[in-house]
């Protein structure tokens, strides 16, 4: 190594996050929300009307993380009643677990009975994924790249993105799934050998997010193929992705 490179290397130091399971994010980060049990019906109605994606329902107040785009506007509208914490572990394998109810302050978790047996037996030690962006805005895609970069380095767990669907154990979909990508998504999926998994990364992928209802979408793929993991976010944070996948494949 030339002397200059060594100097840069020294300065660069160790960059990888040592413990991906317990890393702490900035308190500003918008992760799992907590709704106060004291939130009133009027306050609930107010934020339900304001929420741009219809993520908030009443009686009692709840937030569906599959729809929430983490704008934090509801928190600003009813301060003290809704608080977005910096808890990035918000992955679930059943949509029900993405719903946060007033008074809940428990981590979001996977339902073990909903995890197909072959997932853990086949993929626990190595999981290769093919990513398909189907109307993704490139922020989710960049965060998925970051999950494998020098800081997050999910490769340490044998998880990585591969170029060919033939080499993959599943697909990670980003974006609300545009009509114009629907066919390419199906072809990519068909090319992945079984057993295989489907992961939805980002709120757009889970529910359409801000694009739900747009005539430019074709989400029929999701009616045909069961989803193994939902990863909310706008975009999904690398730590949400990595922890969610580790929980799915049963790696501690």
């Amino acid at each position: 190594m030339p002397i200059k490179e060594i100097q840069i290397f020294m300065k660069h130091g160790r960059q990888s996050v040592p413990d991906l399971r317990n890393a702490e994010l900035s308190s500003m980060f918008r992760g799992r929300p907590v709704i106060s049990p004291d939130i009133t019906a009027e306050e609930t109605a107010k934020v339900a009307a304001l929420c741009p994606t219809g993520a908030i329902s009443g009686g009692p107040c709840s937030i569906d993380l599959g729809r929430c785009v983490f704008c934090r506007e509801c928190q600003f509208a009813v301060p003290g009643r809704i608080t977005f914490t910096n808890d990035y572990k918000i992955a679930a394998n059943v949509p029900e677990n993405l719903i946060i109810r007033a008074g809940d302050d428990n981590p979001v978790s996977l339902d073990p009975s909903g995890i197909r047996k072959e997932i853990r037996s086949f993929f626990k030690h190595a999981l290769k994924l093919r990513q398909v962006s189907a109307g993704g805005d490139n922020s989710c895609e960049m965060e998925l790249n970051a999950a494998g970069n020098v800081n997050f380095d999910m490769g340490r767990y044998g998880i990585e993105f591969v170029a060919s669907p033939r080499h993959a154990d599943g697909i990670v979909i980003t974006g609300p799934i545009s009509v114009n990508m629907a066919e390419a998504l199906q072809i990519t999926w068909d090319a992945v050998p079984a057993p295989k998994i489907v992961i939805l990364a980002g709120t757009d992928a889970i529910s359409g997010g801000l694009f739900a209802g747009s005539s430019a979408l074709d989400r029929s793929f999701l009616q045909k193929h069961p989803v193994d993991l939902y990863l909310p976010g706008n975009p999904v944070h690398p730590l949400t992705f990595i922890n969610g996948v580790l929980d799915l494949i049963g790696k501690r």
Partner: protein
Amino acid sequence: MKHEKHIELKGQPARVKMDAIPVLHYTVFSLHITELLREPFNHCLNYFVVPFPDKYKFICCIANDETKSILLFSHEHEKVSHISLPSLTRIHFPFHIFEREIHENFGIDFPDHPWLKPLRYPYDRHDKGKSMDSYPFYSMEGEELHEVGVGPVHAGVIEPGHFRFICNGEKVLHLEIQLGYQHRGVETLFVENESSLKNALLAECIAGDTAIGHAVCHAGVMEALAGLPVSEILALERTIALEMERIAMHIGDTAAICTDIAYQFGQVVNEALRTIVINTMQGWCGNRFGKGLVRSGGTWYPLTPALSAEIRKNLQEIRQRYGQITGYIFSMSSVLGRFEATGKVTAKQASLIGAVGMAARSSGLKRDIRWSHPSLAYSRLSFEPVVISRGDVWARAMMRKSEVEQSIELVLHLLDLLDGKDVHPLPVYNTAAEPDAFSISVTEGWRGEICHTAVTDENGKIRHYKIKDPSLHNWMALALAVRGQEISDFPLCNKSFNLSYCGNDL
């Protein structure tokens, strides 16, 4: 009194009444464009059609760099079943992309347009008979030639698009880029959404890697329509945010360019530096891409003295470390061997295709909205854009390096101007907008000029929303850059532009 052929907007974002925009006969309209574009200091910001129940209104927005103004004029055409007009592209090649869009959306014909191909296959396109899988690719006959198709799904984790190469052996003779896979109906959603908050969020997702650029541009359009003032402090904060986005993306691109020349050390060092910048943004507003930061009239996330100190500290560290690694990168002969003379776009080509932003400046064109049509805090800086004339991968990589250094100095200076100011206005939603008005906002995002325009109806509701991402022009630059190159240089050329798919597809 002489009848004016255009209305001149001094300063932007700005709004005018729709009926204040002169309506010209098509012959006069095209002659006026010819006359204006004869001057090298004029270029077309946007040209599009607004449909009304009974007519189509063609609106042309020309930027004049000398007077720092925007010139608006229009043409109206009755809505009849078949409209055929002489193409403006014949005389002004940069119009090719605008006319393709107009043709695709409304079926308006330009018989002498040389390349009237689909642009993005929007769901509400005029001709539903055209579909993604029947794109009319250019082809060449020849025993020695072969075609290579790549995408829409690419090897890496990136957005989809299709590239069709015609090659002679390893050498690329022609590249055609088919886009549209990312089309989400964004412009229609801006009209359909009832809530201005939802539109602010949507603006951040037009191209998520330019969340701040598009959000600032959108806020400008909405504030102009509502007559909302932008306070000095808000202008400073937005300018800082725009430059932070530029720094983050340029460092990320420096890493990605290193990846594509298989220089892993350069890649990882730059990746780690980008992380510092985006984590600083996360500390500011809770999102690494700055989503949530920019809202009409104010912000929920004031730049506090503590945050300013954090930004200063981090940028000073990045200045030192980025300078060190890039100084080294640009001194290695093995790197230079891959950068130099690869993927060249000449100044003439750049100006013919209407290239904007960083791609234009790397080919010797001085085109930068921060300099030519400054708004926010740029108006109080004597900003001079970096211009590099070589037009190759080296120039585009060096552009990243130079602009990161320039932007760091800018942010540090802007933070000084911010010191001691602490009146932070909050966001304002659903304000009444001027009825029957036209509003325009132009922002220099990290890729180049972003232009948003909105037209309101008689109740002040948005009737038409038009977005122009810099990639709309610059994709053609990539197609030209790879001509005569080895096909194996394509990834490097592509990365050196790093264009947006969703920004094009909307």
